């Protein structure tokens, strides 16, 4: 294995290596570049067929930028994105088009991501028309089938987006993504704008579709409960970097990074009286324009040592398939709770 986190022999759909995305910040009349927002600062992972990798983190951690850069909706500053073994970061628009069929995106906001002037049927059928995959009666039949597959009535094809509820619009977005039989679906906070009862419908649909078509999902979310429900593997991001990446059960059962630990402790549980040891982080996330040196988390980390302030920890596999970027978790070291060390 080449040391990419999550590398296994399974069929790899997406391999992201050292991905960086820095946004220049312009100021003044000459609009000179005065700095950069280090939105994504060296991120690597793989996703296999039929697998869901979740990117989780708080606002500004770069999770959505990873999703957009993988789709090349934004151009990466550095790094490679391999889709089915082909690096797509250097491709021109025309060459990229062929590969785009293999990956589709579902957006967070079902209101702004559907063209209000197009009928629902035309929205779902557009990818098919774009790629010249179907027309006429065949096209209509395929659209009808997609509608039914995502739980919409086929006779709703003539309606316009505003006639659908939030959950139904998200189903339209999913149907549109499915239209060209992609292998990878990038879902950027797909259920965050929905009420919980509707959120359940959409999550169930995503899981069913994955099993049916062996889809790979890159699932971006800030909601730990959703991530725990849908993710096979979870990558936790903080200020543009992955700080921990592990299988679902390992990450939630034995979080090894102090930030993951704090994140899990902060999320309220629907269990009255659940007594938990609570590590409440103080302060705010630092600005991604001026990330702290060394470990980005050291300013809020209760266990930080002198070394954390100067030396950037590498993402290392400290247990099989469990990757952590923390100086306090040396390879092969003891894995007791960090609290004991800090005491």
């Amino acid at each position, binding site marked *: 294995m080449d040391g990419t986190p999550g590398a296994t022999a399974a069929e790899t759909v997406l391999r992201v290596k050292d991905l960086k995305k820095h946004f220049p910040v312009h100021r003044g009349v000459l609009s000179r570049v005065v700095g950069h927002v280090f939105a994504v600062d060296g991120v690597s992972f793989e996703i296999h067929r039929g697998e869901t990798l979740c990117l989780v983190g*708080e*606002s500004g951690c770069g999770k959505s930028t990873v999703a957009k850069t993988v789709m090349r909706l934004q151009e990466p500053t550095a790094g490679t994105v391999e889709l089915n073994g082909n690096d797509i970061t250097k491709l021109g628009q025309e060459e990229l088009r062929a590969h785009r069929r293999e990956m589709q995106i579902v957006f967070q906001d079902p209101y702004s991501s559907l063209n209000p002037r197009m009928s629902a049927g035309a929205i779902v059928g557009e990818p098919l028309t774009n790629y010249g995959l179907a027309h006429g009666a065949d096209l209509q039949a395929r659209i009808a089938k997609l509608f039914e597959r995502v739980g919409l009535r086929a006779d709703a094809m003539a309606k316009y987006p505003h006639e659908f*509820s939030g*959950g*139904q619009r998200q189903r339209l977005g999913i149907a549109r993504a499915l239209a060209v039989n992609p292998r990878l679906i990038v879902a950027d906070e797909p259920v965050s704008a929905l*009420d*919980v*009862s*509707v*959120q*359940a*419908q959409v*999550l*169930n649909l995503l*899981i069913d579709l994955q099993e049916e078509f062996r889809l790979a999902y890159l699932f971006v979310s*800030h909601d*730990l*409960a*959703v991530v*725990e*429900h*849908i993710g096979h593997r979870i990558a936790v991001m903080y200020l543009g970097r992955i700080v921990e990446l592990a299988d679902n059960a390992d990450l*939630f*059962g034995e979080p090894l990074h102090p930030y993951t630990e*704090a*994140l*899990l*402790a*902060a*999320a*309220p*549980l*629907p*269990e*009255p*009286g*659940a*007594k*938990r040891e*609570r590590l*409440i*982080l*103080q302060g*705010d*996330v630092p600005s991604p324009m001026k990330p702290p040196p060394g470990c980005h988390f050291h300013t809020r980390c209760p266990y930080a040592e002198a070394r954390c302030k100067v030396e950037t920890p590498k993402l290392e596999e400290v247990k099989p398939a469990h990757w952590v970027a923390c100086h306090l978790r040396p390879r092969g070291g003891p894995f007791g709770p960090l609290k004991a060390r800090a005491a």
Partner: protein
Amino acid sequence: MTALATATAAPAAAPASSDTILSVRDLRTQFFTRDGVVRAVDGVSFDLKRGETLCIVGESGCGKSVTALSILRLIPRGAGRIVGGSIKFEGTELTTLPEDQMRKIRGNRISMIFQEPMTSLNPVLTVGAQIAESLHIHQGLDRRAAWDRAVEMLSIVRIADPKRRAGEYPHQLSGGMRQRVMIAIALACNPKVLIADEPTTALDVTIQAQILNLMLELKERLGTAIVLITHDLGVVAETAQRVIVMYAGRKAEEASVEELFRNPIHPYTRGLMGSIPRRTATGRRSNIRGRLQEISGIVPSLREEIPGCAFAPRCSYAVDRCRTEQPPLDPHGPYHLAACWEAARVAATPR
């Protein structure tokens, strides 16, 4: 249309006692749109006791925020109004109170925190001035004293370097800090009741934990009663003493927090609890990538009159009666109300 303040003995969990600071009876708030009347709050009754935390939970459009705005009489005039029912605060009827009297209560005895701190703060005033303003108006403090107290409030809500921060504008603060400022403004006059409408929904989870902790700690210290409006059952479980579940402008269920989570009766409450992906304190999921329980269908339009139970079209227990007759809030145990005709059958069904 019901006349104002002619509250009939609407069912409430407990009779209004001296312990009760806020008493809402059969509240009806409607909005008048081109497409018809929207019955946003459709006969809601509840009591708030001194110093307690009451959560109102429900999904978008269930009327939870409009209930809060009605209590403070903040329903935009022209768009909608309270058309019936009574709201009594320490014995004073608020629905008919003249506006100048209401202004003395709002922000002083009853205050409110909103979801989005950026839009609720004035962008052209320093945060210190915004806290001092209410102290100056309500408590009659002079400018100097009001400013000093504003700085003190900032340190109470644990903003580091409060002297400097008091002179800053909202855009210079982070989302979490802005919400702390909102709390400082809301608590500056030692209100008896704090209404918090989704106060942490716009915040990240680590910041949410800070803000919820702060609110509960200040509540203990100042004895303020809190009405916390949220859609998040996790927040409910961690903060509430009592819970009201709302659906389509009506109260579906009311119980103590332990009772509600242990023994939910209304099919909507049960559906809500089954539909959230659950994390548990033990770190083990109850439902590993299994199917989440769905509530099929969508919420009803509030533009049409709903003759029976508002949840009937989505309810798997619904019988004919549910579609024609509105169920009353019946007691189920010492402190537990649920509005469901088929409660006995639901309760007998394991979740």
